[in-house]
């Protein structure tokens, strides 16, 4: 794994701990599929449209995950396959062309069209890469057509973003080596406000050339080249990281920017990669760290000593567990993750307290049984499980809220802690006697 980056970017000196053997499970999973990431990606790139080629189920999933009909005409939709499309792929392609033409006529502001593969489109082997090429040629100069898979047979929840970003990478211009080495590239969607703040902090540290993937406009893709310093902001971007490394980027190894400690280490690792003196880093960040810790403190009071169980869902589970145990004093009962990418998680794993029980994959019934035995105080889980657990007297935090909320960076650490303290506070504030 150390072949990926050149510098050991870890700024937190934590003892590498031995973790007990991983529980590897296969059984029923209770996780969204990768289509779900469209819900935040379309907001990130308002000039892009995400067209799922799938079934009514896919359309219903996105609608249910989005929860609210925020937009009259959202910048995503589903091309629902009908029986005729299944009968003949030639027809399906023709139909897709017709539908795309119609869509583009209605939405002239769209610059990038993502064709998003689903389980049905993959099972019938509808070749969306070729469709993207064909449609790209048909609408050249007007819109760029890309494709990736968000299907549930290939991807879970946040992995959809990994796919979307990988589709963008080939379009990123090649940055000449001299320039590339000066550039910091942050991969992963962050809330706009959070991102602005992080970029301005990097500026104060002396890193002025900061680009982001995905960019805010789909057409304004940053360059990448030999020596581009890659800082991954979200722990679910395995494929994206690999593809950028293939383009010459150097992965900065760091924990993820969740919580004060993780965020500081993340920024410090980047600073280190740019040869910025630790004193400079301390001068800029330490006041923030102190303030961040103060912001966490009241929530730590609620959270400390409470037992936490994370069901596998968003892939944020491991960094969150690290934050909640080390900074908020929670006890980790079990930390589930849909899949474990040891390379991208390495800096996180070393920070987990000794004895942390990880589980990978899912057998929801067995997991719930363990949960019932353990009776944790707080469970991080998907929406389908939240009320049933609450009804058993167990407080829950919905994982989907974590991908919609601004939670990254030192300044957000207090808010992040509050998200977990809230359900516990609410429980204790209710009384019917």
């Amino acid at each position: 794994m150390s072949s990926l980056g050149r510098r050991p970017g870890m700024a937190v000196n934590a003892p590498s701990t031995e973790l007990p053997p991983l529980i590897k499970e296969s059984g029923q999973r209770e996780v969204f599929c990768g289509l779900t990431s469209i819900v935040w990606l379309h907001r990130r790139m308002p000039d892009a449209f995400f067209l799922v080629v799938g079934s009514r189920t896919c359309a219903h999933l996105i609608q249910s995950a989005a929860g609210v009909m925020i937009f009259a005409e959202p910048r995503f939709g589903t091309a629902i396959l009908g029986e005729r499309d299944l009968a003949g792929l030639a027809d399906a392609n023709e139909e897709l062309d017709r539908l795309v033409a119609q869509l583009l006529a209605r939405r002239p502001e769209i610059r990038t069209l993502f064709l998003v593969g689903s389980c049905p489109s993959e099972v019938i082997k509808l070749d969306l890469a070729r469709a993207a090429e064909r449609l790209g040629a048909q609408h050249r100069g007007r819109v760029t057509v890309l494709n990736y898979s968000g299907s549930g047979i290939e991807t879970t929840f946040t992995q959809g973003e990994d796919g979307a970003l990988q589709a963008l990478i080939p379009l990123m211009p090649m940055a000449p080596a001299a320039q590339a080495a000066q550039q910091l590239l942050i991969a992963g969607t962050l809330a706009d406000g959070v991102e602005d703040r992080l970029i301005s902090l990097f500026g104060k540290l002396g890193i002025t050339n900061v680009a982001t993937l995905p960019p805010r406009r789909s057409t304004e893709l940053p360059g990448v080249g030999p020596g581009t310093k890659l800082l991954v902001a979200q722990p679910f971007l395995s494929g994206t990281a690999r593809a950028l490394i293939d383009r010459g980027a150097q992965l900065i190894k760091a924990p993820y920017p969740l919580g004060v400690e993780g965020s500081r280490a993340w920024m410090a690792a980047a600073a280190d990669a740019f040869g910025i003196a630790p004193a400079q880093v301390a001068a800029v960040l330490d006041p923030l760290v102190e303030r961040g810790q103060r912001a966490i403190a009241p929530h730590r009071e609620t959270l400390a000593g409470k037992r936490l169980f994370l069901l596998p869902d968003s892939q944020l589970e491991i960094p969150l567990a690290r934050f909640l145990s080390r900074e908020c004093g929670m006890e980790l009962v079990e930390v589930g993750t849909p899949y474990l990418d040891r390379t991208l998680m390495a800096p996180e794993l070393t920070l987990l307290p000794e004895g942390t029980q990880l589980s990978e994959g899912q057998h929801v019934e067995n997991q719930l049984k363990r949960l019932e035995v353990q009776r944790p105080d707080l469970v991080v889980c998907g929406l389908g499980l939240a009320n049933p657990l609450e009804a058993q007297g167990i407080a829950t935090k919905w994982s989907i809220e974590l991908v919609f909320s601004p939670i990254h960076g030192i300044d957000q650490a207090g808010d992040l802690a509050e998200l977990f303290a809230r359900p516990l506070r609410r429980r204790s504030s209710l009384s019917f006697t």
Partner: protein
Amino acid sequence: MELTLWTYEGPPHVGAMRIADSMEGVHYVLHAPQGDTYADLLFTMIERQQRRPPVTYTTFQARDLGGDTAELVKRSIADAVERFKPEALLVGESCTAELIQDQPGALAAGMDLGGIPMVNLELPAYSKKENWGAGETFYQLVRSLLKAQLPPPGTPKPGPGRWRSEGRRPQVNLLGPSRLGFRCRDDVREITQLLGRYGIDVAVAAPLGARPADLLRLPDADANVCLYPEVAASACSWLERSFGMPTVKTVPIGIGATVAFLRELHSAVGLELPADLVPDDDGLCGAESRSRMPWYARSVDSTYLSGKRVFIFGDGTHAIAAARIASKELGFKVVGLGSYSRELAREVRAAASELGLEALISDDYLAVETAMAEAAPELVLGTQMERHSAKRLGIPCAVISAPLHVQDVPARYSPVMGFEGANVIFDSWVHPLMMGLEEHLIGMFRHDFEFIDGHRSHLGESAPAGSDAAIAATAGSPVWTREGEAELAKIPFFVRPKVRRNTESFAQERGIGAITDEVLYEAKAHFSH
């Protein structure tokens, strides 16, 4: 292939889930990829269910596809039977599994399930939708559980007076109430109480709250009440054909329909019409006084409801009922009627044509929104999709039909069927409108300098400023002069967008660049022919 942004209905297997979740002792094994587990949240979030829906998903992945997904299906079935010990098992597949053709139902049929009845659900995901799936699942479940009880061909129908000879009160089944249906929980209670007053018992209400063993008792009843045709029509007609059980088809939503329902029910079970259901010379009957709605509608304050323009859209059952209540019982003017239920399209069309309208049968919410804007209603009665459209257009809205949102599942008792249901309807439809005297006063004071246009205190929000302008704004439109705008402002807000549009197209066609008050009146005259 069809482009969909927001949808009214989920896929048919979600309909099957609604049946499974409505019942006790039923488990559904669904061959589906992991993402399809999202459907659990419909039940646990919208309906705030305290348990997970009784569904086991196989959650097969791409890497399983090369191997033996059939094995996975069998394992999931065996596990589910062992773990949940269901009294009846539903086995089916979602859209993706339909393509890989493992035929989970056939696999289940080949397994030793310890004698549990198993229903093989084949719900074509690429041509059918949620309500159809719910109806089909309920029908298949009823049929397969009752197979063994089928009377031999030629058996005479039980007469409507069977209950007399059996020395008991007449009893009926209430069929169709289901999870994620509109107000089903309270409708069942309301109708059960209502029938009790007339000496009629409810044998079984299903699927909501029933167990498989209850379905075995369906033929003991004297008639079936088809409360929600979307879900129960096929089952009712099969029970009618197979067991000679009459179906009561009138859906008791609204005063007139509730009375008609009671009369139909009495005749179906051979019960003499009690005095309070016998119409007097004016066609009224005593039972109506059980609801405050008829009197509230007649009271002077409600004069102001006369001719209120309403736009109605929903599932077939609720849209048809709403149209009748709105036009007959509240004195509104129905200016649009439609439904996303293709299965009930014929009935909706008939209801619309009675009102001199053409029904809008569509599942494209944008087409519905366009029709809504065109009709310029003062009130929208719709699903939660129309609530959003109406909000954008600045029109008050009450939800009358699924699809629902969490706020459409109220904590308080709020049926829409029966006499109490009529009360609930009166309150919930009239509330969003500005009420009588208040509107009158506002009309009187609207020229006062302190008057704020768009004041609608009952909406809990101010009218979106400039919403009509936003609708109309298109490039190259003629310009409104100050007098033109002033005159336009005097037109009621709900028709203003339409007048604005009409005037602009009138001006454009005639090459008029500036719209003065005169132009507006010319346009108005032009369009009133």
